[in-house]
């Protein structure tokens, strides 16, 4: 069948809400877009372990330490399912990881910001996981089957993390003056980067239009961002804190909150590698991988020995 007809059939399936599965024919560009997006998502989970992991050994109570460990462990689990989803598209985990280490593949820029105080752990849960969920809930209905199914599982855990993050901020917001200050400061520092997580405005976004047509995405960056702002503007009241945006106000006519201008120059600089922690995050991943090389080699050498031993017996 000519490619043009295959493409037409493919689009018909998408339009009819039939999920695309690994063995189905798909346009190269669809496959490439998915590989880029899913592996980027997997890397974000794994790199995202670092800023939060930064506070595990210093968590302020045994309960908080256990919650944080469990959370970071969940992120590693998400990384695993997503690498597995990438593999269904014909790229090995090793190749995908090499692309991260060489700098070819990206991960969410939010993880290039530092976690400076304990309150950052709560703010990441509330704002960063909150923003991620907006995107991920949409992705549970994405057109590629394995990605959609991985997302269903991930979303359940992420909403749990978000509630835990919010609860942790709530405790700070009702605590001592120092804790309140720590809480507001973390919100101030994470708010704008969290808004940038949705990506550039629709008018500037290079991949958006085609991804919408293929139903990889179902809402635009700006729609998702607006939903997130509307949600947080209400939730912050429960904390008795404020969002660091003097332009934030309810607009009756739009039925949405208006908000101030996002600093896209900062966004693009962090994407290009100039953020506060880009170098450290990547270096930590590369080092873990290099330090672990002898362990992986020993494990495969041992497995080969066992296998040939079994054959000989």
């Amino acid at each position, binding site marked *: 069948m000519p490619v043009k007809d295959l493409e037409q059939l493919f689009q018909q399936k998408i339009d009819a809400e039939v999920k695309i599965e690994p063995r189905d024919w798909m346009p190269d560009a669809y496959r490439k877009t998915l590989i880029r997006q899913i592996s980027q998502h997997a890397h974000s989970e794994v790199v995202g372990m670092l800023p939060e992991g930064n506070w595990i050994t210093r968590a302020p109570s045994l309960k908080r330490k256990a919650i944080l*460990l469990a959370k970071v462990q969940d992120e590693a689990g998400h990384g695993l399912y997503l690498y597995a989803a990438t593999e269904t598209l014909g790229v090995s985990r090793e190749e995908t990881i090499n692309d991260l280490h060489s700098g070819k593949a990206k991960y969410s820029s939010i993880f290039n910001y530092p976690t400076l105080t304990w309150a950052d752990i709560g703010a990441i849960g509330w704002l960063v996981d909150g923003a991620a969920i907006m995107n991920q809930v949409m992705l549970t209905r994405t057109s590629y089957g394995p990605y959609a199914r991985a997302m269903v599982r991930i979303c359940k855990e992420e909403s749990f993390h978000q509630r835990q993050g919010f609860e942790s901020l709530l405790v700070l917001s009702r605590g001592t003056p120092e*804790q309140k200050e720590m809480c507001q400061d973390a919100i101030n520092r994470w708010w704008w980067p969290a808004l940038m997580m949705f990506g550039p405005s629709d008018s500037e976004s290079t991949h958006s239009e085609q991804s919408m047509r293929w139903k990889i995405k179902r809402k635009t960056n700006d729609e998702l961002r607006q939903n997130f702002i509307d949600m947080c503007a209400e939730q912050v009241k429960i904390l008795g804190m404020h969002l660091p945006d003097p332009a934030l106000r309810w607009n009756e006519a739009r039925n949405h909150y208006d908000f101030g201008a996002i600093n896209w120059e900062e966004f693009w600089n962090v994407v290009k590698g100039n953020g506060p922690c880009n170098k450290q995050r990547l270096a930590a991943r590369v080092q873990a991988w290099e330090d672990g090389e002898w362990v992986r080699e*020993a494990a495969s050498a041992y497995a080969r020995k066992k296998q040939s031993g079994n054959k000989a017996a």
Partner: protein
Amino acid sequence: MKQELINYILHLADNALILGQRNAEWCGHGPVLEQDIAMTNISLDLIGQARNFYQYAASLLGEGATEDTLAYLRTEREFRNCLLVEQHNGDWGQTLLRQFLISNFQQLLYTALQTHKDRQLAAIAEKSLKEVTYHLRWSSEWVIRLGDGTRESHERMLKAIDTLWRYTGELFEPAAYETACVQDGTAVSLATIKDEWQHKTGEVFSEAGLPVPENIFMLTGGKMGKHTEQMGYILAELQYLQRAYPNAQW
């Protein structure tokens, strides 16, 4: 008697907490994602065990003691963990060897503790045993895999044994509070589990092709609050927020 029992429970709790804290340092830095998850899981189990022991000790202590006052507001000299658990992670091989040596010990200890007369302690031991049995299986497999893997991994395991073996003697040297509890029937006599520990260690080392060291001078003191220099740094990190913001709730 009560003070001895509290000290014994704190000793069990401190062992679990400090090892859990050390293992947690690996989170996000493991050699492969699956093992990063396994290590974090063990860390979580150990912190869970520590919490159970601390909560019990706090209930016996009264006067406002909680799991957190015990973990966060005692000093180096008041911690009663063995020296082995506070040692640096080193490489993956050293961490795994430390885990194996301790899990082997904890598995035997908790098995015996299950039938002791203090019912609360027996219940915690029973609950922890399921976890520790898995830790032992997992760490044994790794010691074997690395001992019998490549030349490099074998060399690294020899180095790990050289670093850690000197701290294993303390596991079987009863502290005064322990001896008192053994007489009272609330602690495990270490002499009764030593042979089994040596047997299991010998079995795993032999399969790994690793030698069991002999005539090594053993370093002790942790159980009586005399630690290695590393302990102060572990607590500085662990206790930082509670020390910097006294009386805050988190």
